[in-house]
């Protein structure tokens, strides 16, 4: 059976029955399941595993969901991955990530499962998924360690909790975890693509992070001036007005012409706290937001033109979702993903090579 997607807005356990009825494959190789924080994570994980006992069932809590053709809230969405698409899968849980990301055991598990070092796996046929507690503040360290150990790409997102900012969860095979990351290694014989897309362009101004508090994701000074003052000058407003422009003017670490977006969160005294870390000495370009719907549609249309999309997972930043909600364009965004099996969720951060904001990272199955 091909990949299929499903969603339900019912309560447990009816939601699971609903999802099961929509699955074309009685026992998919893997089930990716994202759910609103309205669902009890342990109950959801147990009931999903009971419904798909032969499948690897993974997922996380969200701040909004996406399925083929629709953006949703307070729902559960699932992607059923068949055995032809996913030839093999291995999952490892990294617990207590706020105290450091110990990925060695996870890689040992992968090596036992695949009977080969991860470093020897074909990076065109193997890909990693990463789902991580979105309130841990540990994503940068985790992604750096994954990148140190492997050339296989890991793509994913930080779990949400419907903007309550209290507790997020990841789950696998009947259990749910907080303060944890889920690492999933997939063998995809038909290949895949990773998409990283952000709707921002440079306005041609650069700020150097001259004093930072890296663990606190705080920039104290840009260009040796109080951070908010330098930022406000760069976008041409007063320091008092600047926070109202954070979503319109994030900053970007430019790598090979692409921004890795760093979004300001709030002002603390005259420092700026961000949704991800910035290293001292880093030069960041001042960006301005562009049209999320038009940009994302162009990216997906290009991939469609290159060949059939068998399925897709979208890890989309909650800041993008909030912008879409404020512009009443969620229907337009959801429609981009019509016509092929897709799921996604609104994240508290996106992962690909590193940790970033105001971005959609996607895994596209061929």
């Amino acid at each position, binding site marked *: 059976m091909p990949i299929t997607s499903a969603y339900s807005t019912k309560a447990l356990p009816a939601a699971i029955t609903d999802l099961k009825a929509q699955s074309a494959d009685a026992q998919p190789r893997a089930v990716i399941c994202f759910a609103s924080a309205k669902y009890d994570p342990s109950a959801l994980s147990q009931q999903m595993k009971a419904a798909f006992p032969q499948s690897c069932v993974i997922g996380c809590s969200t701040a909004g969901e996406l399925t083929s053709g629709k953006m949703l809230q307070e729902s559960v969405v699932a992607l059923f991955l068949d055995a032809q698409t996913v030839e093999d899968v291995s999952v490892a849980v990294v617990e207590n990530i706020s105290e450091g990301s110990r990925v060695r055991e996870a890689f040992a598990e992968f090596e036992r499962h695949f009977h080969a070092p991860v470093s020897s796996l074909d*990076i065109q046929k193997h890909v990693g998924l990463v789902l991580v507690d979105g309130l841990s503040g540990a994503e940068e360290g985790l992604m*750096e360690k994954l*990148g*140190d*150990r492997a*050339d296989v*790409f890991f793509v994913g997102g930080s779990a949400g909790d419907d903007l309550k900012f209290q507790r997020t969860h990841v789950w696998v095979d009947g259990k749910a975890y907080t303060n944890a990351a889920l690492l999933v290694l997939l063998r995809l014989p038909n290949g895949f693509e990773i998409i990283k897309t952000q709707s921002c362009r440079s306005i041609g101004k650069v700020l150097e992070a001259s004093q930072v508090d890296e663990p606190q994701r705080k920039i104290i000074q840009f260009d040796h001036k109080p951070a908010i003052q330098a930022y406000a000058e760069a976008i041409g407003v007063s320091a008092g007005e600047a926070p109202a422009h954070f979503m319109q003017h994030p900053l970007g*670490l430019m*790598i*090979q012409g692409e921004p*890795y977006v760093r979004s300001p969160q709030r002002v603390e005294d005259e420092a700026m706290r961000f949704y991800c870390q910035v*290293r*001292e*000495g*880093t030069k960041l370009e001042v960006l301005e937001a562009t049209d999320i719907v038009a940009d994302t549609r162009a990216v997906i249309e290009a991939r469609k033109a290159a060949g059939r999309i068998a399925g897709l997972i979208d890890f989309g930043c909650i800041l993008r979702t909030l912008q879409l909600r404020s512009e009443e364009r969620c229907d337009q965004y959801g429609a981009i993903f019509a016509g092929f099996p897709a799921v996604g969720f609104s994240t508290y951060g996106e992962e690909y*090579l*590193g940790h970033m904001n105001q971005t959609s990272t996607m895994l596209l199955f061929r």
Partner: protein
Amino acid sequence: MAGQIKRMINSIIQKRAKGNPVILETTTCKLILKGLDPALFNERSPDDPTIIVKVLAIAAELGVSV
């Protein structure tokens, strides 16, 4: 002396990529995310001992010797 940092960075990228152009590109990206931008160094860059220590540490993290 000059140019050692550039040579070390090139060595890290080449040893990690082993001729794979995709890994060559992503290793460069990983270095920038670690705060070491290869484009900021060339054959005339001074052999700053502080930066050399940083490059050695990054090489160790990436599992290569330079």
